[in-house]
């Protein structure tokens, strides 16, 4: 077989060193220029669209009471990550474990970039960045930061935003209309509640307001104090708990307990009041609307008889608290602060979606993210009977919802009092007959004063 003339000889296919360098150099130049000039020409989109955000972002948040919220948040975070070329990791833990976890991350000076909690962590002010740029960016797009959020996350003493709040949760009274109607009462005022309590207990359906070391008891009892004109501090953040109003309120609640509650309330956790209602036993609790949403989803036999109203009025009026204050905190030791800030700003801007996906559980903290009139329309469209029952939420949110520490701001001392559950303890001591109301209030005030002195010394109040 003869060799074909068309085929090059082996020598002809070899490159000299000079030719190799020439061709390789030209090739590299072509690839480099083409790659830089046309990002999609050969390598797809650039990995990091915004270089200042690049990298990873880790967030720790709670397992939301309304599952559909998490089903929205998790993919939203991933989409945000793709849009900003950031690898977002979002982890959920049970709400009762958030404080422990925060303490561990601070102790270790490492952990997640962004930490969510259900109450403002004012005592960690030195551990977090100033969140002012986030709030300014969001305000420029979706309106003013609401007073409740401002009071919950801003320290006027240090002029620092120690957190950014994307949402708060109104705290209505949830009550069994069928049971209350049966005894001819309604929880319009605390006097009505006291009058109805023994009758409801007699028919096997006690009241369910906790006096335990947990979140719901804290919220309900601090709000109850406010209805009686008793405040932990005044508008200048000076402690004012020791007053005749406080003593009266503590005595009043002890009477409600003795006539219309059971000792279960002293050992409750944040889910206990809800479960008390779901079991068909409880006739009234103070809780966010997860207490009505869950019976609706489980189709419990009394779900249509669960009504929501504003907190009952006391001698000082109708003053309630938020049930939860959704606050996001960027630690100083966060690895990717730029991405964290951008993420939180965009999350706050998406307040409307968050409110809808949480089924009206989360209310946005920026005025125009989802204005009250639009929320009201959305609530009116809810078909669960009695129809329109959720429209009251906007009234509660606008008129009767205040920050913890009202009329002052939520500060480190308030955070510590809240975290140590001093107020539920003050009530429980009297309800259980261990102390007189006067002694219990006095002892609590001593502890409160010490806490204020400590934080004043640290320059935080």
């Amino acid at each position, binding site marked *: 077989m003869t060799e074909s003339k068309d085929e090059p000889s082996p020598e002809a296919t070899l490159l000299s060193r000079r030719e190799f360098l020439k061709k390789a150099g030209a090739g590299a130049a072509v690839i480099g220029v083409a790659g830089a000039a046309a990002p999609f020409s050969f390598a797809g989109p650039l990995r990091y669209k915004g270089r200042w955000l690049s990298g990873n972002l880790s967030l*720790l948040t*709670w*397992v*939301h*009471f*309304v*599952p559909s919220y998490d089903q929205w948040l998790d993919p939203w975070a991933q989409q945000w990550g793709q849009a900003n070329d950031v690898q977002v*990791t979002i*982890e*959920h*833990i*049970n*709400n009762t*474990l958030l404080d*422990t*976890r925060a*303490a*561990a*991350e601070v*102790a*270790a*000076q*490492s*952990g*997640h970039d962004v930490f969510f909690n259900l109450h403002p962590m004012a005592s960690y002010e030195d551990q977090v960045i100033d969140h002012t740029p986030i709030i300014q960016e969001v305000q420029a797009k979706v309106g003013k930061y609401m007073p409740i959020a401002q009071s919950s996350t801003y320290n006027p003493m240090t002029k620092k935003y120690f957190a950014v709040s994307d949402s708060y949760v109104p705290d209505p009274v949830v009550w069994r209309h069928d049971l209350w109607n049966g005894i001819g009462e309604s929880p319009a005022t605390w006097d009505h509640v006291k009058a109805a309590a023994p009758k409801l207990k007699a028919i096997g359906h006690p009241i369910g307001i906790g006096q335990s070391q947990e979140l719901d008891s804290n919220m309900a009892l601090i709000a109850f104090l406010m209805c009686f004109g008793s405040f932990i501090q005044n508008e200048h953040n000076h402690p004012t708990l020791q007053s005749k109003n406080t003593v009266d309120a503590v005595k009043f609640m002890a009477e409600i307990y003795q006539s219309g509650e059971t000792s279960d309330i002293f050992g409750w956790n*944040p*889910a206990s009041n*809800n*479960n008390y209602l*779901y*079991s*068909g*036993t409880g006739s009234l609790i103070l*809780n966010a609307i*997860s*207490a009505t949403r*869950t*019976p609706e989803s*489980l*189709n*419990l*036999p009394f779900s249509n008889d669960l009504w929501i109203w504003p907190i009952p009025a006391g001698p000082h009026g109708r003053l309630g608290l938020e049930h939860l204050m959704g606050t996001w905190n960027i630690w100083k030791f966060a690895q990717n602060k730029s991405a964290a800030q951008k993420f939180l700003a965009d999350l706050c801007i998406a307040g409307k979606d968050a409110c809808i996906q949480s089924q009206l559980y989360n209310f946005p903290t920026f005025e125009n993210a989802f204005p009250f009139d639009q929320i009201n329309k959305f609530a009116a469209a809810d078909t669960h009977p009695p129809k329109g029952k959720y429209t009251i939420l906007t009234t509660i949110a606008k008129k009767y919802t205040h920050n913890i520490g009202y009329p002052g701001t939520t500060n480190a001392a308030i955070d510590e009092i809240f975290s140590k559950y001093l107020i539920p303890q003050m009530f429980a001591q009297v309800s259980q007959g261990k102390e007189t109301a006067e002694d219990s209030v006095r002892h609590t005030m001593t502890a409160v004063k010490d806490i204020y002195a400590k934080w004043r010394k640290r320059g935080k109040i």
Partner: protein
Amino acid sequence: MSSALRHRLFSYGVVVPFAIVLAFPFVWMAVTSFKPEAQVYDPTKVWSFHPTLASYGFLFHHTGYVRWIKNSTFVGLMVVLITLVVAVPAGYALARLAGRVGRSLGVAIFLTYLVPPTLLFLPLSRVISRLGLEDRLWALILIYPSFTIPFAIWLLMGFFKSIPQELEDAALIDGCSRFGALVRIVLPISVPGLLTVVIFTFSLVVNEFVYAITFISSSTNRTLTVGVPTDLIRGDLYNWPGIMAAILIPSIPLALVYNAFLNRFITGFTGGAFR
């Protein structure tokens, strides 16, 4: 009525009520795990039972349950191994250290077991962070021996003390080294004690919660004790059938193991008591 019959009736009279009381939670757990979720919450249907495998399906298909079990088992086995490697020679040395020093050391080691994790987790967080073990199962494998080893040393120390010194002396006279005596003479006699350490350590590790929730955050690395309350309790809504199923499944093999080695387990615990 014969005395044997009276004795038997008395025994059953005491044991049966206890057995019923102790078995009741397990029965309730098993029944609840087969109930539909809505039925558990419905107060009008407390005593009705329409069995379903829905909660088991949910566990295996919609949560990381299998992964949690794997993680717990891996951590448990590793900690058992480390505990045995450290506690056996330590327990033996303390058992044979005569006098006040040995006793004091034994008590001192046991006292470290009594420091609660709720105090220790904060400083240990820093240790774990420094070692770069955040969100890794190795963090737990490193930390758990801090409470399993003291207990195991204390338990084995008592057990080793119950073994006659003469047996080892005979081995030493026959040319065995101290280590050889431990391996060839002491350990074979100490199987009940070792078994007790294995079972007890494994149970402690599988049930531990505080360190697991503190040091592990990603769902893929969660252990059973953290995965169940995180994924099966949604705020105020407890997925009771799912929780019961999640607890029932690992409790069955553990109960069988306990039952199979019950006599040895009791011997292990009481080994040091009848010296």
